[in-house]
């Protein structure tokens, strides 16, 4: 059973339309830790030692955040800069994250159709996340495709949010219980929309 750490970064979680529900969907799961970064470090004063201990104590790290400007909210960048120390996360002797699984769980305002060569965002979501993929790579982690909930600006009904949060809960549970096709997830552009396929193999 994997221990999962969800690094939640949302500066105004109380106003979020989707993220809040995603977190609530997994909050009660055993072996899942939610680390609410903006709540813990309201002035971005990150406790590096504490964060490193958390990372060491978990097998999978999920970065859950809105997809601000095709990237992460500020605190997550600060976190990345400070916590992933040379000699600890990468470089000589830096092997503390080696073998851990990681992916981004993002919510984006624009529709999925916008994230391709023809759309106004011009690039697939996964391509835009390349810096995170490469960071994971440098730290020797297994990077999975993003869990991306698109079109949150249009998400109006509770039903839509429910679909997403149910899927999220199923994904986290499957990841925890090792019921997911990791090879396939690593190649996926969007594990939210391919969830059926990723989980089916184990169930079958």
């Amino acid at each position: 059973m994997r221990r999962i750490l969800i690094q939640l970064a949302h500066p105004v979680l109380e106003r979020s339309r989707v993220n809040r529900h995603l977190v609530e969907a997994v909050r009660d799961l055993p072996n899942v830790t939610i680390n609410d970064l903006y709540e813990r470090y309201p002035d971005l004063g990150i406790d590096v030692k504490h964060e490193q201990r958390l990372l060491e104590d978990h097998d999978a790290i999920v970065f859950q955040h809105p997809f601000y400007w095709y990237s992460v909210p500020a605190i997550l960048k600060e976190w990345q800069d400070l916590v992933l120390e040379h000699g600890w996360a990468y470089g000589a002797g830096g092997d503390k994250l080696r073998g851990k699984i990681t992916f981004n769980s993002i919510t984006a305002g624009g529709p999925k159709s916008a994230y391709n060569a023809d759309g106004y965002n011009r690039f697939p979501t996964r391509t835009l996340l390349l810096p995170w993929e490469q960071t994971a790579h440098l730290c020797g982690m297994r990077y999975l495709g993003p869990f991306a909930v698109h079109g949150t600006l249009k998400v109006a009904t509770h039903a839509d949010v429910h679909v997403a949060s149910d899927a999220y809960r199923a994904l986290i549970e499957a990841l925890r219980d090792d019921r997911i096709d990791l090879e396939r997830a690593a190649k996926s552009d969007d594990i939210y929309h391919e969830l059926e396929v990723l989980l089916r193999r184990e169930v079958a």
Partner: protein
Amino acid sequence: MSDSVLAQALVYLVAAVVFVPLSKRLGLGAVLGYLIAGVTIGPWVFGFVGGEGHSVMHFAEFGVVMMLFIVGLELRPSLLWQLRRPIFGLGGLQVLVTAAVGAGIAIACGIAWKAGVAIGMILAMSSTAIVLASLTERNMLKTNGGQSAFSVLLFQDISVIPILAVFPVLGVVAGNEITDVTKEAGRPGWLSAIFVIGAVGLVVVIGRFLVRPLFRFLAGAQLREAFTAAALLIVVGIAYLMERVGLSPALGTFLAGVVLADSEYRHELETDVEPFKGLLLGLFFISVGAQIDFGLVASKPLQIVGVVLATMVGKLVILHVLGRGFGLDRPARWLLAFALAQIGEFAFVLLSFAVQERIFEPGLADLLTACVAISMVLTPPLFIVLERWVLPLVTDDEADKRPQDEIVDADTPAVIAGYGRFGQMVGRILRANGIPLTILDLDPEMVDVVGRLGIKVYYGDASRIDLLHAAGCANARLFVLAVDDKEQATAIARNVREQFPKLEILARCRDRPHYWELRSLGVQRVFRETFGSAYETGIAALQVLGYRAHTALRLARKWRDHEEHLLEELGEVWGSGDRDSYFARQRNGMEEAERLMRQEDPKVFVSRDAGWDNESLRADPEPTEAATETGS
């Protein structure tokens, strides 16, 4: 006993050094300490000082002159103008009524009417030296009652001039002997008046136009002693001038002080004169103590006790009644009455003058002198009685007069106890965010002032459980404990914890022991009241010294984390009562913090916040692409 000046100085200094700290330790105050020291070294106990006590006293009286100079320095003319009603109204009536009543009683006791009138005027005086020193010592000078007492004393100082002028008229052989300084050189009255006005004008002119250039000149010379000498020169010079024209030197220097209160050299003058004032005043108090003629007291105990008691009780009653007439509240009234009940040092001067003028017999003067000294010695104990028993009584009474406010159906998520500077800040942040508050405060003035801003503050004692219930603590989610009185804060915290265990308390504490005390009561979050601003000042200080803002912030944050940790640890050591290991741990903690900061210091830069550092990357043996990726 010894006529060597050094030996005498030795006696006085030893007495002061032994008795004053002792008296302070016992809570009796410094003034009483000096007086007791005087009695002890005086002729009736050890006899170290004898007849010369009188001349020492005359010399030491200059301490009073200096004290009034310093008092004047702290009193801007505008402030003095504001006090005109208490000075002339309250002060004038006090002198008139006391003198009249005193004279009436004296005459009724069979003393000739002229002597009686003189005695009345002598008894009306109070002791500027003892009263001001005692008020300052107890931080009471700035209170309502303290200001009134000061005003009355000021008027008494002024009234000495006409009293001195009247005395010769009362004498048996009026006008024959040249004793009055005002009549020196046989000046006619109108000329004296011109001299007086001229002298006062001169003091104002000196203060306004001469002192500033003089000090600027001295500042240029960069001589510390020259400043001190100049300050003393001003005081001595004005005192001399005043004496020459027949005015009270104390009054003159007071006037000079007021004129200089606005000058930029005010603090300079104050610090220069202060030590001299303190020493001389101490000497003066000692000589008052040494002056008491216990032989006389032993021979006429009833008479003396009677006169002292009657005078003090009489003055007390008159002051109290007048205070009421002038609209003072009860604590201020009692303070005024207790403070000024004694007979003052001017009485010594007036008594010897009265004897010179043959207004009455030396025997009577000796008796009265003893009474004056005894009444002065009794003043500090009276202050203690006032402070310990009378004020609490009348103050409580005052508070009770205002009924605690009825709180009807308070049902707000937050309750704030204590709406002073601290509570207000918290409250304003909450209110700005539209959070309804229930606010409690025990300071009626604060309740009214804040009320004028349109904010409803309930007047009431937040340590009372019924009030906590009425304030809606049962349903509230937050209780901000911001009262500034330590004991009260602790009492409130205890009651809230016991009665409403689920209610979250955010508490302000005054100091570390208070912090630990509140924590031990189960208050989870306690905030040291000055920590936040000091912390921010520390960050700004680092910035001024060249640290970049963000670095300064991070360094301070690191230090704060360490400090908070240390605070908890120290709390345990403090609780054990072992002060040695407390201070040892504290020293140790400071060294720890220094080591920690040195590590963090960007100039030394060993390894912290290494994520922003590329030192280790450069040293990395592996040729890694990361060097360019995460580089500087």
